[in-house]
């Protein structure tokens, strides 16, 4: 069973976000990590490989630093990586990234495509589902449990107020929700072996795009949230201060 995992490198969730002089997110001194939801996808892929054999391929669209996160996935036990890196892709939107990933995946053998349900940075939750559409595959998102047989899979997905169980024929795309599994640590042996595993870096040209897919959405504009206003401290006798609190809640905050 061959598995492709779409992996995005994101900022560490504790990273401080700042904008540079041209209004873009400044990524110079930020710690990066595998998008935590994609880590569940990697773990799910490795579990399937342990059960059925085959290969796990990590497929990413990214830049200079992306191989660090891909190597971590290789250290966890994935077999190879494909990074699509092209200056044009710095302007990519979800549609472009999905087209590129789909093209890369279509060139390798696969039975299952896995990814996180959402990336913690831009939180669009679109790419993996768009990949499924581009490849004409069924997809199940926000998966909490995944049972795979020869050529079908039964996925339990989270929905409002409960879960839904869906059976799909393979190949298919699944996006991982927190709770699907507990991702393993890469062990020392895995880390030592990771650097000798194949990590191909391809341009759009290498993938066979005659011209770069153009973004369909408008340019993103970023702004930082304004500074939080200081709170109000109500002082005085309890009876008076409670009356004042109620007045503020109803007249100023308008919550009661």
């Amino acid at each position: 069973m061959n598995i492709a995992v779409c992996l995005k490198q994101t900022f560490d969730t504790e990273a401080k976000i700042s904008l540079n002089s041209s209004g873009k997110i400044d990524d110079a001194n930020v710690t990066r990590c595998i998008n935590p939801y994609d880590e569940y996808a990697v773990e799910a892929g490795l579990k399937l490989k342990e059960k059925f054999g085959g290969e796990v391929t990590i497929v990413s669209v990214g830049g200079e630093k992306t191989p660090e996160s891909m190597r971590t996935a290789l250290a966890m036990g994935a077999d190879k990586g494909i990074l699509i890196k092209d200056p044009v892709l710095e302007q990519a939107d979800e549609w472009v990234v999905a087209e590129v990933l789909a093209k890369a995946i279509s060139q390798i053998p696969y039975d299952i495509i896995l990814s996180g349900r959402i990336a913690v940075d831009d939180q669009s939750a679109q790419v993996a589902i768009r990949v499924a559409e581009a490849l004409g595959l069924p997809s199940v998102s926000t998966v909490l449990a995944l049972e795979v047989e020869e050529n079908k899979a039964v996925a339990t997905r989270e929905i409002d107020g409960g879960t839904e169980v869906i059976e799909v024929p393979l190949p298919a795309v699944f996006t991982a929700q927190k709770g699907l599994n507990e991702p393993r640590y890469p062990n020392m042996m895995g880390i030592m072996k990771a650097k000798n595993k194949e990590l191909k870096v391809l341009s759009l040209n290498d993938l066979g795009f005659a011209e770069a897919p153009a973004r369909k959405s408008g340019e993103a504009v970023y702004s930082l949230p304004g500074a939080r206003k200081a709170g109000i401290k109500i002082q005085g006798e309890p009876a008076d201060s409670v009356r004042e609190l109620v007045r503020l809640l109803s007249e100023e905050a308008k919550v009661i």
Partner: protein
Amino acid sequence: MNFDLTEDHVMMRKMVRDFAEAEVQPGAEERDEHEEFPAELWKKCGQLGLAGITFPEEYGGVGADYLSYGITIEELSRVDASLGVTVSAHSSLCANPIYLFGTEEQKKKYLIPLATGEKLGALGLTESMAGSDSKGTRTTAVREGDEYVINGSKLFITNGYYADTYVITAQMDKSKGTRGIAAFIIEKGMPGFTFGKKEKKMGIRSSSTYELVFENLRIPAENLLGQEGQGFKIAMVTLDYGRIGIASQALGIAQGAYEQALKYSKERVQFDKTLAEMEVIQFKLADMATEIEAARLLVYQACHMATNKRPVSKYAAMAKVYASEVANRVTTQAVQIFGGYGYTREYPVERMMRDAKITEIYEGTSEIQRIVIAANILKEV
């Protein structure tokens, strides 16, 4: 000269730190309180490949360098110095002498299960009358046919009781002093090998420290490690490398305490200011950070020497004496920054200060380190 870690080392640090913060830190206080040996965590360390980092793959190890080892012990000790020394004593003091001095058969039989973490190791060197001075070794070994008969006892043995495999030293010819000492590999459960009292310690309380007792312990002759009379040399070389582990442990303790103090000083408000806004605290933090960086450079340099098979004695001793004294100064200042809270067990700096002290004592006291350093530098001129 390159001060950047390689991609491998960055990944290793992250892996060990993630493991340490998620699984080691949460129970550290509890284990310290109840002197509970981290048996489950040790097993996990084995699965993560932390039991045999520096040994070749053919002997069950990872085949990584000493910096990988140093970083591992540092990161474990940053949250729990007891687990740090458990792994360090296992690798440096038991697996390493077998790797360096063992026969092919001994390596196959003993090193492989140690390096994979299937078995835990310890070194029995210290005795009541032989601390810094190995001449006082009173445990005896006598050759009888195809066996050695060992009698005596060993004190303060890290990983004692929980370890499966022990490298021990014994005197074979008192008239030859340290040249009469031999080293042996023994196993838990051999008739005549029992455990004496468990030490109740000031710090590293969840690390196990026991007395080993030998009463007519008969071991096959093939369990002699190295040659008869080579035991003292084996012990000294073992300690040279072992000090890299303790230096890394001290560095990790200092780093952990410093981070706690830094965080607390940004939160704690007195006189309408955070502690971090006060110059008197800023100066403390600046000194702590500077000394830790200096210690780190010495420790990593000692790792570099060991990896490249260069003489490690002087560098390991320098790293150990400096890092252990930094750990003591930094943890003391960390407690000071926490004030009254720092003296209670509500915050981890109290444990860290108790844990730091031992790093100035075991695997050669600070005084012995200075003797080693002096002997090395005087030999150079």
